[in-house]
């Protein structure tokens, strides 16, 4: 009897304590306030790495994030087609207060029209809350800006890995060195002396 009363009391206390926790649970998401901008200009047909975008879970619950490109805020320029931006490295889940930097790539089709482009990077927190059939969602937006100008794609050389450039430099330097060596007229002669000849030479020296 006493055990049953104690258990009931304990459950009651647990319910009272747990209720406020559930009531104050929240969903939240944040994104860097600074715009995502391409350093330099883009050319039609080129692929460029954009600065990684900072996202953070500001809610109390674990949540996953998704990123889409949509023009929401006011700005000048053509609207960025969503297909031009590729998102990689999305974390499967962000804990409360956890942040991440999400890499973005800009893929400009060859048919892109030159000009200034503007849209928003919209980060959506997917830890939706069920509200009797309605989910309460959160998102946060920051500007996305870049400029497309006509011209050849120069990014290919500059995005080449540094070790490739170093290897090419070494080969060219060796080739230059060899050419200079040949033009100097100095020749290197390699001779092979047999053991018998060496002995004969030694004996002749002994006279």
């Amino acid at each position, binding site marked *: 009897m006493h055990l049953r009363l104690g258990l009931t009391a304990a459950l009651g206390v647990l319910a009272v304590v747990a209720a406020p926790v*559930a*009531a*104050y*649970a*929240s*969903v*939240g*998401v*944040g*994104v*860097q*306030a*600074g*715009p995502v901008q391409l350093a330099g200009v883009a050319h039609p047909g080129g692929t460029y790495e954009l600065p990684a975008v*900072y996202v*953070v879970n*500001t*809610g*109390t*619950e674990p949540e996953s994030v998704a990123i889409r490109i*949509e023009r*929401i*805020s*006011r700005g000048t320029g053509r609207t960025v087609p969503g297909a031009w931006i590729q998102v990689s490295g999305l974390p499967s889940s962000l804990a409360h207060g956890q942040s991440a930097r999400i890499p973005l790539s800009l893929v400009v089709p060859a048919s892109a029209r030159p000009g200034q482009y503007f849209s*928003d990077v*919209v980060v*959506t927190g997917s830890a*939706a*809350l*069920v*509200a*009797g*059939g*309605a*989910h*309460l*969602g*959160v*998102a*946060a*937006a*920051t*500007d996305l800006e870049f400029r497309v100008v006509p011209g050849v794609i120069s990014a290919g050389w500059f995005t080449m890995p540094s070790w490739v450039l*170093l290897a090419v*430099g*070494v080969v060219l*330097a*060796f080739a*230059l*060195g*060899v*050419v*200079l*060596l040949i*033009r*100097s*007229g*100095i020749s290197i002669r390699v001779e092979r002396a047999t053991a018998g000849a060496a002995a004969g030479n030694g004996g002749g020296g002994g006279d």
Partner: protein
Amino acid sequence: MGIKVRSVSLAVAGVILAGSVVAGCGLTGAPPNAGQSASVNLSLTTVPTVRSVTVSPASVTFGNCTGGLASQNTHSTAGKLGFPNGHCLVGLVNPGFYPITVTNTGIASAIYVNGSSANPFDDGNQWSLCNQDGDGAEKCKRDDGRLPGTDQYMVENFSAVGEQKAGIRGTPSCDLEFGASGNCLAVQGGSQGEGIELIGPFFSTDTSTKWTMTITWTPVPGNG
């Protein structure tokens, strides 16, 4: 004699060039007699530069459902939406009760809101979000846009500021219920209590009795 000296010089230059590239692309090092450097470490703290929002609490429920046709046994019950064009609430318009708290936890931003289509649990036909003007969503098909048609539904959010009678959009737009001065600008820490009113379709072609939809709040750059 002159040719020989030139040849030797060229050879030495070639060897030095090749050798220096292999050794690390040039000679480095501090100049002789250089003075010792001194430095001081500085630290600086800045204000946060994150744009963020939170919505709480975690659990609210549609209730106070009204409307529908009793003669066809499709009238609303307390927690179930009826047809045609039943209404359900999260919170109360009068007297005001606004159980959803939207807080701008980042830098000053404009707070936008948008809705989505409603999806049945059986993955059948959706209800499209509609509003009175057909702006950012379908135009509601009944009563000159004031009531949803078949497979349409409308969401109005309300707060102490007022009620968005025209219905929220499917694309993010300024949440006029957020700012007291008719805009949606929120400074850091600014919050608003809100409620939701859902007006259901004239008729649903999908027979599912469980539906989900999403209402999303988004802080965006700008002044609302």
